[in-house]
């Protein structure tokens, strides 16, 4: 070798964590769970990754909780407001503290959860826990900041709006769900976003309802001990008052007929086909979700027959894959394809439908099932390569079941699923009457205009 650089400092050698990773558990780290009288839960995961701590505060509210009409997108907007200051810290003071800590900090909202996260040096843990608790317990913002922040949300909508997948998803959800709040996206409808500046009082109500200890789990991962975590959580979150609001999420009635919708896209793009069936909610006990997760990979992943046919052999599609999240309530099992030539839209749709039909009757080969189990196990092991990554992996599961244990239960459940289970469960869910198909393509005149331009080159 011309040059060998040996890295003598074995920083980042999480010896203990690594030993744990060799276990067959899907979540291999030791952790503790502590419940406080007010309903708050603390999960601590000490690792050997040195110096850094990842703090994830998981709130079990998201666009699913937006039950009133005209309030779509509000959970996400509210997440923005959580950065606008609290009784003991102005927004500027918050920023200064995070800056001094060299922290990477952010938040996100999805259907079922809002997650506030920060990764920083362990030396700053006390101050950051104190500051974070203040906003969860004593959030404080004035009307002008509220109205200004609503414009930033509008800016977020605007930046997303160039992407046709955003619109396709909006239409897919409102077509497939008629009463459940999953009918709108987390971003929300534009008309509701435009009305956000007028919802100051509702925002305070939203805070009172959902920013409560019984909906919240503090997750601390990294160079931290349980004693420290417990002490700080008790000290700063201990006086948080339990709430009593429970959102009445309307159940989605059984779908009784196949549905479809089409989006005319105003500028040139490749057509997109989404085929969706009403699927189950997350469960670590019932086989349905896990069986269909396995099927999602086998039937529609990049090693599937369909992918190999449409993407690699026939080359009619350049994006193909399943989208089937773990959700609190029954969720859509979606397969998406971006089609290279508009004339192939129907063909691609029919190929996807035939694949759903195929696995409702045909058994998955045992070796394929074994390979898929292996894939899911290694996916987990390889995703958790830092304290932040471990916390980030945990957050969705914490929002669903408030414990990492659910991940291991899931792994056990996975081992019990047979090819016959997959086929039986597929046959139960992939029925014509529970199907929604949405297509997106450029408006006819735009397509025509584009073709002229192409010819003119």
């Amino acid at each position, binding site marked *: 070798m*011309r040059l060998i*650089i040996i*890295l003598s400092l074995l920083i980042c050698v999480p010896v203990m964590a690594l030993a744990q990773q060799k276990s067959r558990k899907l979540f291999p780290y030791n952790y503790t769970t502590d419940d406080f009288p007010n309903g708050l839960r603390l999960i601590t995961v000490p690792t050997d990754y040195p110096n850094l701590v990842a703090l994830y505060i998981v709130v079990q509210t998201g666009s699913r909780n937006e039950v009133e009409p005209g309030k779509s997108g509000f959970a996400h907007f509210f997440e923005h407001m959580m950065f606008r200051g609290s009784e003991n810290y102005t927004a500027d003071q918050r920023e200064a503290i995070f800056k001094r800590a060299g922290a990477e900090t952010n938040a996100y909202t999805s259907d079922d959860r809002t997650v506030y996260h920060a990764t920083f040096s362990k030396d700053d843990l006390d101050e950051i826990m104190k500051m974070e608790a203040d906003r969860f317990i004593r959030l404080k913002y004035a009307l002008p900041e509220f109205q200004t922040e609503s414009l930033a949300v509008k800016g977020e909508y605007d930046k997303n709006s160039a992407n046709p997948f955003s619109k396709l998803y909006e239409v897919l959800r409102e077509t497939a769900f008629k009463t459940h709040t999953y009918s709108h996206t987390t971003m929300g409808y534009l008309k509701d976003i435009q009305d956000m500046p007028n919802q100051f009082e509702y925002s305070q109500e939203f805070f009172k309802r959902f920013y409560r200890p019984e909906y919240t789990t503090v997750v601390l991962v990294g160079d931290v001990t349980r004693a420290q975590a417990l002490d700080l959580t008790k000290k700063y979150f201990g006086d948080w008052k339990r709430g009593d609001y429970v959102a009445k999420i309307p159940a989605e009635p059984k779908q009784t007929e196949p549905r479809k919708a089409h989006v005319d896209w105003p500028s040139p793009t490749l057509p997109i086909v989404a085929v969706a069936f009403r699927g189950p909610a997350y469960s670590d006990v019932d086989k349905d979700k896990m069986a269909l997760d396995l099927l999602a990979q086998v039937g529609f992943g990049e090693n599937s027959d369909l992918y190999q046919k449409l993407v690699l052999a026939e080359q009619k599609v350049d994006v193909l894959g399943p989208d089937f999240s773990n959700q609190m309530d029954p969720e859509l099992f979606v397969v*998406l394809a971006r089609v290279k030539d508009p004339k192939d839209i129907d063909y691609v749709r029919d190929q996807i439908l035939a694949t759903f039909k195929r696995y409702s009757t045909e058994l998955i080969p045992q070796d394929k099932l074994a390979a*898929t189990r292996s894939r899911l196990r290694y996916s987990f092991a390889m995703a958790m390569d830092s304290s932040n990554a471990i916390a980030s992996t945990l957050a969705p599961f914490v929002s669903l079941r408030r414990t990492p244990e659910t991940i291991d239960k899931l792994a056990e459940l996975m081992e019990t699923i047979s090819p016959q289970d997959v086929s039986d469960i597929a046959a139960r869910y992939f029925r014509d009457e529970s199907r929604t198909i949405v297509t997106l393509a450029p408006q006819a005149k735009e397509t025509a205009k584009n073709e002229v331009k192409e010819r003119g080159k």
Partner: protein
Amino acid sequence: MRRRPFITRLTSKLISLFISLAILTPAIALGRTQKNMSTKIASVLLPNRSPLVTFRIQFMSGGAADPKGKEGVAALTAAMLAQGGTRTMTYEQFLEAMYPMATSFGWQIDKEMTVFTGTTHEDNLDKYYGLISQMLLDPGFRSDDFTRLKTDAVNFLKVSLRETNDEELGKEYLYNVIYDGHPYEHHNMGTVSSLGKLTVEDVRAFYKANYTQANTVLALAGGYPKTLPQRVETDFAKLPLGQANKAKFDAPKLASGMRIAIVKRETRATALSLGFPIKVTRADKDWPALAVVASYFGQHRSSNSYLYQRLREARGLNYGNYAYIEYFPRGMFQFTPDPNLGRSSQIFQIWIRPVTPENGHFVLRAALYEYDKLVREGMTKGAFEATREFLTKYNNILTQTQDAQLGYALDSRYYNIPDYVSYMREQLGKLTLEDVNNAIRKHLKSEAIRIVIITKDAEALRDAILSSRPSPITYNSPKPKEITDEDKVIETYKIKVNPEGVVIVPVEKVFE
């Protein structure tokens, strides 16, 4: 988010089509060095006891080596290696083999380097390495793969960039404009017209000339067996010896004066990017000072930087505003930059996220006003100290994973600086406010700013800019006097551009 926003899951699928890389960021500690003259292959090794093993296999050649008229061949060659079959295995067979291991093989190209990356669990190391080494060393260059990947490249430019993502479109087109006539000019993926003419023979020729021992850097991290580096080196010695690619590129020479390119496209918002070349790279002694400035002025996706505070937090004009001194593609999808995008010429860039079209003129003025103010006034002592403290700690976060550490080590090798984190800690410790403000005056003063704007009504915006008429702003809530006073200055702020300096570019001409 505030800061991490709502990104559709679909978008990430789209991205992964083209950029299978991504992982995290930054640095490591360098120890001793050794030389072995038996091959011309360089290595960067980061052994530890992790059960994961990470590969970054770098070739010191990229888009700047595309022959004239064959723009995109470097990228297509990389795609053919990482997403195509070998002489003995089809790509389908690779996917089948990778599937139970949950592994993949990613590629990333930039002007001067191409890197292939992947991580595997130690359980699967032999099998995984066997696959990826075969992909790089015994490529099949099959015609069906070629057709697929060439179409992907064209659709990336025509659909994903031009028609799906105004922000990335603006940022990438800014590079086209600044590097007009320079080897960096074209997008790394090529141009639509050049891609159309490429043949599989062009790919073979590029591979033969550029994938040589002299251009290879093997980087490994994780709990790999001691014998692995030697095994890998022996395998890669099958590549021809070749000569190291020594090409370095000067900053482009731009005509003086501001130039504005308004890209006309059917879109609901207006996206802006501004920039100009700088003579500073990570190898330069002024780089740490400029890193402080860029972080203070517009730390990527951070809410505590100056531009973000002024435009978004105080005024609600958009979703975010940032500044850069290094190429940072795919910024809307990630919080930290990908390593291995080293360049001998970089630009200073301001990225203004989409605004409503009626505010486009005002926001352009605001960005120029803030830039001029930065150059005129520099940083304050308080801002300097806070930002220095931030960066000193934040660099540890950038290098949380072994993949990031490996990537930063490769970049330190490229720029010939010590381990990034310790180097920056030391340099930041020595830095003074005067150093930083000198660096601003020396490197960030430009009379040749280039601006790219993506908007629907390009003519109206051009006319507004050239008319110099005021662009008053209204808000949905009362603003402090300090803001309204400043707005009065901004709404008539002089945009120093001549009529011939503003051009309207139909989007279908971009990357054509």
